[in-house]
Every structure is written in structure tokens, then in C-alpha cells.
């Protein structure tokens, strides 16, 4: 079954449609307001909904999905409070951070349709002071490769030789990965990246 994209904002709809296409889902229909979503969902138990944007705009659509008890994926553009989460959660909602990777979207869709509730840890509202640049920005492919090799205990020079780049470039990628992950050592960086699903186990 293909998804129904539901969002009030034109630009959010565009992004969601693009994301769903990239994840190889054919968008079944697109709706602009919660009432038409409710009508569309009536009598279609297998349907699933993709919505997004700030939680305030996504909430009416999520409520309709909850009432119809269908799976929903929310691509949220801001952090959420645990209270909002408790209010919205009904077991078939997968919420992920906006600008996600396609595979995260795919996994969220799979999980919510299988009846799981998924909350991206990057959506946690926290009182910690994190600089905006470090908050949940994904690692670049190069940073990921460098971290994976360096994290397995290889020396900077060996990593540089394997990738055909200079040791200083390796250090540069590592430093920027440390900054994004908010850590100070190679071991911590590897763990943080594994927890965030950036590195494979």
C-alpha cells in the first residue's frame, strides 16, 4: 500500500513527496487539510500517512491517523517534548527528524506499518546547551568512512593511505565528526555514531 501525503504547507508537501519517492514509494494521494484526510482514511485500514513540518502543523493530521488507527510517519522539523510524545503516541507512529536520510524514512515507514512506535532520538527536547551546528547534523560519507577506519584502531597514517588522502585531511574529517557528535575521543565518537545509526555494527 502506498502512502498518503498530508500537510497544510505547500513546501512541506513537496519535500515529503520527494522523500517518499526517493524511498521508492508511489504517493497515492495528497491532502491539504485534516478533514479530507479523515474522509480518505475512512474504510481504508491498510492506508498509511506521511506528514511533517513543525509539530503544531503535523498534529491535526496525526490525530486523524490515530483515530483511524493507521500507521503514520511524521517528519518533524523541530524537537519535541516528552508530553507531546505521550499525547500523540499510539503504537503506529514513527517520528523522525526532518532532512532524514532516505533509509531512515524507509525504516520508519516499515516500522510504523508493522505496528511499532519509533521516535528518533534526535527529536528529544533537551535542556543541554548544544550549538545549533552540532545538533543532529548527519556525518558526511567521508567523515563516516574515516571514523569507521580510525575507530577500528588504525593509525591516522594508515587510514590516509587506505583512502588515498593526506593524514591532515583524515584529522580534519575526524575533528569535524567529533564536533558533530559532541565528543572528544575516537572511542566515544564511534559509540555515538553507532547509537545514531551512522555507523554499522
Amino acid at each position, binding site marked *: 500500500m502506498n502512502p498518503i501525503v498530508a500537510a497544510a504547507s505547500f513546501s512541506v508537501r513537496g519535500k515529503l513527496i520527494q522523500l517518499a519517492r526517493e524511498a521508492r514509494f508511489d504517493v497515492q494521494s495528497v491532502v491539504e487539510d485534516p478533514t479530507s484526510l479523515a474522509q480518505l482514511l475512512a474504510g481504508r485500514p491498510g492506508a498509511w500517512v506521511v506528514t511533517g513540518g513543525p509539530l503544531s502543523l503535523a498534529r491535526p493530521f496525526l490525530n486523524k491517523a490515530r483515530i483511524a488507527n493507521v500507521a503514520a510517519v511524521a517528519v518533524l522539523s523541530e524537537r519535541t517534548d516528552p508530553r507531546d510524545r505521550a499525547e500523540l503516541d499510539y503504537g503506529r507512529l514513527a517520528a523522525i527528524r526532518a532532512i532524514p536520510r532516505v533509509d531512515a524514512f524507509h525504516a520508519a515507514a516499515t516500522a510504523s506499518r508493522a505496528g511499532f512506535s519509533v521516535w528518533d532520538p534526535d527529536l528529544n527536547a533537551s535542556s543541554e546547551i548544544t550549538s545549533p551546528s552540532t545538533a543532529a547534523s548527519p556525518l558526511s560519507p567521508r567523515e563516516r568512512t574515516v571514523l569507521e577506519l580510525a575507530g577500528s584502531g588504525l593509525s591516522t597514517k594508515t587510514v590516509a593511505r587506505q583512502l588515498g588522502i593526506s593524514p591532515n585531511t583524515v584529522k580534519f574529517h575526524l575533528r569535524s565528526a567529533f564536533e558533530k557528535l559532541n565528543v572528544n575521543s*575516537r*572511542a566515544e565518537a564511534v559509540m555515538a555514531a553507532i547509537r545514531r545509526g551512522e555507523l554499522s555494527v
Partner: protein
Amino acid sequence: MQRITLPNWRVPDGRLRRHDKRHLSNTGVVLNSLLTEYAAARRSLAEQAALGVVGIDRGRGRRFSGIVWDSDTLVTAAEALHGADSVTVLTANGAVTGDILACDLSVDVAVVKAKTGAPGVAAAQPALLASGDDVLIVGRRAADPVVVWSHAEHVGPAWRSRSGGELDRLIRLSSGLHPSLEGGGTFDLEGRLCAMAVRGPRHQTLGIPSETIERVVSTVLQHGRLPQPYLGVRLQPVRLDEALMQQLVRPRSEAVIVVGVEADSPAADAGLFLGDLIDQIAGKTIENAIDLKVALSRLPLGSPVGVKVHRAGASHDVTVIVRERSRR
């Protein structure tokens, strides 16, 4: 009954006074000689321990310490190396070059090949250590011994570090650690090696137990490197609802699902899919990605291992052959 006598003392005008004229004791002299003996014992202990440690210089004035494990192997703190692949090893007899054989970042142990000619301190039997025991942390800054007297603040059972490393004992030392002492030896009052001193999270000083070091060193010397078992999945934490927790018989709601499968990986070969919830591997329940990493490190390479996954509402048993990541 023994009378307590106090040492002689001088009043400010210089006259000698005695507390008890009937006991013109020599307590002061005895106390003095005890102190001298004590100081000499401490010094000889420090001198003896210093024979088992070296200074390490990774260039640009970054200096720390290492422990002479045997005549051509050293161990040091893996994090302190910052990815160096060779270092200068400084002993009382001069400098030699050390080549890094392997780094285990999860337990912060690096194994270095260097012919120091010094006798190794490899502990035949792990030194017994209890909370409160006095220890001395010994390293070298360049060729000079650096010694800090400290005590084991907390000695506990085996634990798992935040980096996913399994340590045979928890040893937290009471003093802060100067960078030059990182990787230095922690010795008990009989001069036996207990641990390697490293800087832990939140400015703590941790001891990496000698048994853990022994384990890493013997693996490295046997294989020439540290095996890196992997499965090839990227994971995302999820919360299970009550019904699913009961269905899967899991005590806690934390779980992980697969959000990425690497091509040509053991996971891909075994047919793991996006969205699979990894329930158990080799009978061990997996609650987070680090659990999986630790479980993998314990599995034998190249033999089939049962993985229980929850896929589309039903449990499936999958057989995975864990192997090492191929090096380009």
C-alpha cells in the same frame, strides 16, 4: 601495662622539656628512624616500579607513559596516541622507536613493539586490590620517573565502559592524572602491577586492570592485530509497547531495528532486512547498538550464529556467519 611516652619537645626559649621524667625515653629517636625507614621503603618501591615504565613521545612535545610488558612489548593508553603509528620510547638508558601494533579503543589499550631491553612487569597473577588500598602511579616524563602516591578509591566487579569495552575489574583511582602519567603503571605496595592509569570520563582517573591488558596483548601477539567482527547493520533505537514486550518476552522496552544493511556483509548474506527488530543474538537479548557490538566481539569468527529477529509481526530465526570486515 605499657606507659605511653611522648617525645621530647623544646619550648620557645630552647630549654629541653620532658613530659615524664621517670621515662627519659628515646621515643623521638625511634620515631625519627621509623620515618627514615618509611621514606626509604617508599623510595625503593618507586625506584623499583620506575624500572617497569617508559616515557612515550608522539612528537610535538606530546608526552605520556607506557608500561614495559615484556622485553619487546609495551602497553600504553590508546586514546593518548591520537592515531600515531610510531612513537619515541624513552627509558633511563636512552630512546628507541616504538611501532604501534594495535589499538583497542574500547578498553583504551595500545600494544607497542619496542626493544627497550628492560624486564617486563607482566603480572603473573593479578594483584589483589581493594577499595582504599594505597597504590603508586608511576610513569616517566622524558626519561625521568614521575611518581604519584594515590589510593584505589573504588574497586568493583567487571564492568562495561562507555566505549563498549569489557573491563575485568572497575578500578577508580583517587588522584587526578597529569597527562605525562597517562598510560603509566599503577603498582601496589608490593610492587606488583595492578593496572594502567588512564583518564576516564568526567576527569576521573581509571585503572585498566592488568587482566584486561593481558587479554588484549595476548590476542595481538597471537593474531598480529585485533580481530574486528562485524554484522553490517545500522541500527535505530525503538521503544516496544507492552503487548510486544510480552510477545517477545523482554523485560525492558528498549530495542533496536535495522535501518541499513551493508552490501556483501554478513547481515546481507543472512538476509536481514530494513525494519527487522533484532531480538537476540546467540541467545543474548539486544537492547541497544552497543549490546550488539559487545555480543559480536564475544562470538567466534566464521561459525554460524543464531539471530532471532522480529519481522512483520512474527519472530524469525536467521543464521549469521560473523566475519571480519575486509580491508581494502
